[in-house]
């Protein structure tokens, strides 16, 4: 499993805009580069990222992105959302070769 670094403020005030940062280990191989033997390296990309926020009342996707070949390896994604209630943020990365990884982070809203 790839390693991921999730940065979510552990505590927030209701209605506050919070910044979420996620960094994941992934080669993001474009499918255009030749390897050391001269052959094209097969494409291996993360294609989709999404973040679901379960605040106890609603459980919806607050951010999603589609990733392409021009995104660097070990992509860092940073976005903002409104802290609506205590709960969990679930992050999901999906990619080529059946790559799928899910991580969770808790947030406490007062």
């Amino acid at each position, binding site marked *: 499993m790839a390693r991921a670094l999730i940065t979510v403020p552990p505590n927030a005030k209701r209605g506050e805009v919070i910044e979420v940062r996620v*960094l994941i280990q992934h080669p993001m191989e474009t499918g255009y580069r030749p390897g050391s033997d001269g052959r094209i390296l097969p494409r291996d990309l993360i294609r989709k990222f999404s973040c679901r926020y379960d605040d106890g009342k609603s459980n919806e996707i607050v951010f999603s992105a589609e990733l392409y070949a021009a995104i660097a390896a070990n992509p860092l994604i940073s976005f903002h959302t409104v802290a609506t209630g205590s709960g969990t943020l679930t992050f999901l990365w999906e990619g080529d070769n059946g790559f799928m990884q899910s991580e969770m982070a808790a947030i406490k809203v007062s």
Partner: protein
Amino acid sequence: MSPATQAMQKDDTQNPAMLWVKDGEALWSKPAANGKSCASCHNDAPKSMKGIAATYPAFDTQSRRPIHLSERINLCRKNKQDASPLPPEHQDLLSMESYVALQSRGMSIAPHRDKRMSEFFTRGEKHYKQRIGQLDLSCAQCHDDNPGKRLAGTPIPQAHPTGYPIYRLEWQGMGSLQRRIRNCMSGVRAEPFAFNSTEMAELETYLASRAAGMAMDAPAVRP
């Protein structure tokens, strides 16, 4: 280094090298086949490894030459863990190295002032000033004579290895000082020193002395 790269390095939530640090942290307490992990001898890395990386390369009494931190890790693997040494630039090795290097962050680089090291230092300085390759350039001609100017868009640094192992944006991954030196050597179209060779150890010893007193910023991000 551009302000953007510096910001990336300073913020642990952005620094991709922290992914390797996390791997290294996990490996630290992962037992080998004989049941021994790094932690079984060295306990808590933040305490026991504090300042260690800042003293390397250090003299190894067995091979009678200075060795790099990654070689020391491999020696431990061989002698204490009965495990096979990892090949140079192995991801696990880089992870271990960056985890150990992180414990010295902000501390002054203090290479071993060992009498036995002086001959290696002298030869390292010679390598540094020796013109090599089809381009007939020495390290000194860029890093002593033209630092701060640009080579292919990137600033030329003064050859202070303060942040290794580094996450290099060009590599899109982690790499050691040896890999970086080999990069420069093939850049001037010379035959690079082999990984973990004596010549490499000599050059690294000299470079560490150049950086003596500077703050460690490993694991660093470089363009």
